[in-house]
């Protein structure tokens, strides 16, 4: 609807004015048969009046119909899907960012609902790296969540542009991944749910571990609040503070701690980026820095590596982004080994032995290649055989992963056709068990090895390439660091002043930034470029949403009638 057209409604009075004022002739004709003419005029006066009235009504109708046509008025339900509106909600991970007390994603959802109410006939999608259809009810009941994926607007746009929507509303948080690559053209409206805000970014500028103290240097480009959590094998500290510019958190650090993990989160911290780093005290080497930032390791890239691994039998390391604050020689030392459907040869054997000796965590997924069975043998695990299953979910009616941050629902989309049956043993610690008792994921704690009993082959399972893979890996890595914790006191100081923060003992397995051992292995939380989009005001949004011609397009018919009435007018004039 284009309401502007209705501003021209007062022009309806024009025909009346023309009829009232009329064109006064300047000429006078001295007409001899005047009386005769007057008689004819009197006789047909009624006819002239009716005709003039009709003409007036027709002219007013023409104007009215034209205004309605210009407004592109629509009502009811669209007979053609093509005329509908597509609403795309950016659901990439960055939309979890808070704006005030509300997540950007929630704002996006509200905007989507608003557009939906205005346009009546619309189809809703969410977009991260792929485009996914959303049920209207889920949107209205706000039952949709952001995804652990980075945005790939270009790909999503290519998908939706083929659906033939007349209008597309693209709601994003303003981060470039959310809109980059969109074809800006008529019928495409990009709505910045952040309203063009430059979010306050905060990042860890550095972490310094001194005798008995851990000093965390924080920086931000504005006033913000952060929650921090520092975990070691004997402690778990939590605190929250507000700061602007720079801040320093000093935490008492017990020298007996074997490792230290630090997690800092806050509205200003980009939730897109999760980094993990670990270091072995005994080996004086980095045990692993695990960057499983969904936005930095897009799902399909991950699949690419997995495919590559499947093809070559090589393990691979995910090191897509080296944190900017990483110090010198640590850069190349982080690793987490993946052996997916491995081959078996001397090289693989040597590699596995190296990982085991170095206590580098290994993730192995099953497959048809002989490598899996051989490695299992090497690890002392016996394989009973391969089981054909119908549905993963069916086998897990009461799915529970006690120590994972992931909910059972995210496994709904996983299907498994085949899996290896593992002989129970003392060495094996099941992580995810099927209802029949067979582990689908188990751990060999002594060797820091995790084994998935299915493969990333569509004939077997799509588990390793499903979207939950990344958060699961994060959980696995964190799980590998799990240990008992004890309460200690923490000290927080914001430059110039000191604040004692009482730590609580709550154990956290939420992904975050961690450090192990004494070395600084903390990652930058990556201040991203914030919205470069011009925000769409609520008034404009309402206008844009309202003027979309969805449903029964009245305006087309009024345009037709305008033509008919014009014809009628010319006939009346004749």
């Amino acid at each position, binding site marked *: 609807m284009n309401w502007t057209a209705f501003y021209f409604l007062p022009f309806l009075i024009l025909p009346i004015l023309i009829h009232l004022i009329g064109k006064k002739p300047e000429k006078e*004709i*001295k*007409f001899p048969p005047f009386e005769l*003419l007057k008689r*004819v005029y009197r006789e047909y006066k009624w006819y002239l009046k009716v005709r003039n009235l009709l003409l007036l009504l027709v002219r007013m109708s023409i104007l009215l119909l034209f205004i309605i046509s210009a407004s592109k008025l629509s009502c009811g339900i669209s007979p053609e899907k093509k005329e509908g509106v597509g609403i795309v909600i950016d659901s990439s991970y960055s939309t979890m960012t808070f704006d005030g007390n509300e997540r950007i994603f929630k704002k996006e959802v509200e905007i989507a609902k608003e557009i939906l109410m205005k346009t009546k006939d619309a189809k809703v999608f969410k977009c991260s790296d792929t485009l996914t259809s959303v049920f209207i009810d889920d949107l209205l009941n706000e039952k949709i969540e952001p995804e652990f994926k980075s945005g790939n607007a270009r790909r999503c746009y290519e998908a939706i542009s083929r659906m033939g929507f007349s209008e597309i509303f693209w709601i994003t948080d303003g981060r470039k991944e959310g809109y980059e690559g969109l074809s800006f053209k008529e019928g495409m409206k990009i709505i910045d749910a952040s309203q063009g805000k430059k979010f306050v970014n905060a990042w860890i500028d550095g972490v310094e571990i001194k005798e008995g103290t851990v000093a965390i240097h924080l920086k931000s480009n504005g006033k913000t609040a952060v929650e921090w959590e520092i975990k070691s094998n004997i402690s778990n500290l939590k605190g929250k503070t507000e700061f602007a510019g720079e801040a320093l958190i000093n935490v008492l650090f017990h020298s007996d701690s074997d490792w230290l993990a630090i997690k800092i989160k806050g509205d200003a911290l980009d939730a897109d980026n999760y980094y993990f780093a670990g270091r072995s005290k005994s080996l004086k080497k980095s045990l692993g820095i695990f960057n499983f930032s969904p936005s930095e390791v897009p799902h399909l890239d991950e699949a690419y590596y997995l495919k590559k691994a499947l093809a070559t039998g090589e393990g691979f390391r995910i090191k897509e982004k080296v944190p900017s604050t990483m110090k010198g020689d640590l850069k190349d030392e982080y690793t987490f080994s993946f052996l997916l459907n491995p081959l078996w040869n001397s090289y693989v054997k040597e590699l596995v032995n190296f990982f085991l000796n170095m206590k580098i965590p290994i993730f192995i997924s099953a497959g048809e290649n002989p490598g899996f069975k051989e490695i299992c043998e090497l690890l002392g695990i016996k394989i009973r055989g391969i089981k054909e299953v119908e549905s993963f979910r069916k086998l897990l009616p009461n799915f529970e992963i006690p120590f994972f941050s992931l909910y059972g629902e995210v496994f709904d989309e996983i299907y498994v056709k085949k899996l290896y049956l593992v002989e129970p043993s003392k060495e094996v610690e099941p992580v995810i068990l099927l209802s029949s008792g067979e582990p689908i994921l188990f751990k060999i704690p002594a060797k820091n090895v995790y084994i998935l009993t299915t493969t990333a082959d569509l004939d077997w399972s799509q588990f390793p390439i499903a979207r939950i893979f990344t958060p699961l890996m994060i959980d696995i890595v964190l799980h590998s660091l799990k240990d008992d914790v004890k309460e200690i006191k923490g000290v927080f100081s914001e430059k110039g002043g000191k604040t004692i923060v009482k730590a609580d003992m709550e154990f956290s397995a939420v992904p975050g930034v961690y450090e192990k051992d004494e070395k600084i292995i903390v990652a930058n939380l990556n201040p991203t470029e914030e919205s470069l989009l011009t925000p769409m005001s609520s008034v404009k949004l309402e206008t844009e949403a309202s003027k979309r011609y969805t449903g029964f397009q009245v305006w087309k018919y009024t345009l037709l009638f305008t033509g008919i009435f014009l014809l009628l007018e010319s006939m009346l004039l004749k």
Partner: protein
Amino acid sequence: MSEELYLQEEILSKAKGLYIEARKIKGELLTGHHKSKIKGKGTDFVELREYTNGDDIRNIDWKFYGRSEKLMVKVKEDKGRIDLLLCIDDSYSMDFGKNNKLEYAVRLAGTIGYLGVSQSDRVILKTFSGFPEVPPSPSKEAFFHFFLALAMIKPRCSTKPLKFLRDFEGMSKNLKAVIFTDMLYEEKIDLEGIASIEGVEFDIIHIIAEEEREIAQYEGAYFVDPESKEKILIEPSLLSKYYAKAFSDWEKNVEKAVTENGGLYIKALTSTPIYETVINYLTKLGAKR
């Protein structure tokens, strides 16, 4: 207007051999020409009447003058001669048309008058307004005054039309009134009254301008009554069809009324050449070559 206007050679040559004649005399309808084709004076004395300018002095009753010192003229009946009364409607309504109706009427009257004089009829010119006053033109010599009078005719505010015809009642046995009019009067021409005047027969030459018949051409103009100055604003294009029919009906009604009252009706469109109208008129009178 000059004399040449009325007496174009073309008209005269075409009218040659045609005569103006009375259709009825003393109530009898004649279908032929004059009783006598003798041009000149009659022989049967009828009465005396007062001398008027232009009367032949040879008709003055000198004996009567000797007795009463009043100049009286002997009126004699000439069975072959008629008194041709040409009545021109000089009302404002006649002043209309590209071919002006009044001018057309004047030219027509001039031509017919000339033909009348040529056949030794007495020609009398009258206008509806009464101006100018013109003496009868019994001779070719006095006919000069007739032309002068024609030249002086111009549109005037009309008086009660044709009342003067009563003055002729009984004065002439062969009075033929030829009335040039557009029949557009506030006060209708009393055709019945004219018809009832003894010794007078009348012909109506209905002058119509083409522009009167079609009003669509006057889009965007007020219509003004030339007589009363009243005006109305209409949309000619809308009424054109109805008006054309009304005008046509009116023409027929006029013709019917004239005919029913014993008059001869001639429709004269100003777009029609004068000679055609004259010949048409003479032909209808029953004249023969």
